């Protein structure tokens, strides 16, 4: 039980930290003219990532 709570807490901490970083980098960080991760390519980038992950998580043939 304790291990499970700790696991959840660590995952949440990572999530919160990641959200903070993205939020601050993209909103308050003062975006440079050419950022590291270009938001205008977000749709194709996320589609490529999610699609690839779906293909990689294919079920083994029985």
């Amino acid at each position, binding site marked *: 039980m304790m291990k499970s709570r700790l696991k*959840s807490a660590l995952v949440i901490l990572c999530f919160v930290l990641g959200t903070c970083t993205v939020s601050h980098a993209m909103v308050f960080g003062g*975006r440079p003219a050419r950022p590291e991760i270009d938001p205008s390519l977000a749709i194709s980038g996320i589609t490529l990532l999610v699609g690839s992950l*779906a293909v990689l998580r294919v079920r083994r043939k029985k």
Partner: protein
Amino acid sequence: MTTPHGTSTGKSSFWLNLNSLLPDHLLGRFYFLLATVAIEYLFVFAGRGQNANHHGFLGIVTDAVGQIPIFAYVVFLGLGHSRLKALKVKVSFGSLLFAGHLLCMAAVFAFTSAVRQGSSWVQFDRFSYAKSLIYVLGTLLLAWAIIPLGDWFQAARATGRLWLYSLLAGVGGWLLGIPVLMLWYSTSTVQSGMLQRATLYAVSVVLRPFLPSLFVDPAAFQIGTPNYSIIIAGGCSGVEGFGLVILFTSLWLWFYRKEIRFPQAFLLIPCALGCSWLLNILRLFALILIVSDGGSQAVEAGFHTQAGWISFIAVALGFSLATQKIPWMRVRSGIEGAAGATELHCEDRRESPAIRAYLVPFLLILAAASLSRAVTGNFDWLYPLRFFAAAIALIYFLPELKKLNWRFGWLGPIAGATVFLIWIAPSRLMPFWWAHQHGVSHLGADLAALSPAARWSWITFRVAAAVITVPIAEELAFRGYLARRFISVEFDRVSFSSLTALSIFLSSAVFGLEHMKNLMDWPYWTLGTLAGLAFAAALRRCGRFGDAVIAHAFSNLLLAAWVLGLGDWTQW
């Protein structure tokens, strides 16, 4: 007639239909609320820029304070998932409240549009405060409409003090953001800008053997040669990659926690962060090397915009593969009892093997587009790469694809012609507005600068891709897979005639997103969504995959003829 909560009782068929589209259990409603708020936030606030006036809410910066309820809600849903799932209550829908929500969002969107158009009357603080207030009110109405107050209280009772812990996690997350800022802000304090300094130092170390004339200005975070130099700004130091990688890895570990072994899996997070940082250094290294060595500014622009995403996708895929393939990270197989049962359960949740044939051609087009833009700059002279990538994949998966019904009738071309007319209508009917929205295309001038052989080769591949590979790959991905995947994980067993209104709308909306030129390109999103609806309607009516493909191919053929005949290059 409606009840006080606004639930339809018979006359209002629209609300009844809307209600039937929503999940009827509490957990589904919580997730639906999260998705709706996220999408609306994107529509209303994305791309609003750095104008402080747009952030004001009672003198507080809403982006900062807004993080607290977002974190809290996500933590509440994540930790309360199983307890909320156990609540088997039938949830009603508040149509009147939802109507109020729509009114509020329309007002907020009008404010935002006016700001983007440059209207001076909305630049005053009081309008920003009003906008924020209306947005908050609209969101509260939405929450009430989707989940009645009684069900909110029931959820709170069922989850004990979780709401309090979630709120504390939200405040903690918001507070954590402040030290995170220190990683890349360049102020006078010692720890500030340390990520920038580390990145600057690392790039200079790897560049020096290749560029003897390299200069480094640590005070200005500038590095380069007399020909070309860059400033490693806070946003370029790797921090955006860090944020996305932490976000992705934590979500991945949460969703697949039953398949992954802990605490081993946590070791992968610093590994992923290290890879992300090293890839960013490689990106900056390649950028300076390419342009200093005679590469054009156009190549620099293409490489700069694509390399960050390519790096992030590579790290994310590597992380997910590591959690699936490294035996030490996985729940062990071949074990009797709970672990074995868990593995069987996880195996059932995985995608059907048929997904490869449906998605890989489209994914290869996206990957080829990303790579070709990274090395070509403004004019994508490597466009034929997309054609070959999709063609090879389609040939490879031919045995699987032969199972589909490729016959077609007259409805397909009719749908295609209709889509073509809808597609060109805005630019014909509202030419000034269209030009304001999408600017001028340089494609015609770029093609004219090529030799005739190169020009016609490029056009031949562009048309062949538009009429052959792209329609097949996109129809396989959006109608063949996505529309049916919304119905069942065994999507290849769902007949096209049984597509639902919701699955058609959602897959078409995603199809529309893929046609946007940038995040704020709503005209193309609308056109893409309408096109997706038309192709899906032809598919559902006839029940044959060939009808959707021929509709898509015919509309693209007409569009290619239009572009080449009239020189209307903005349509490409």
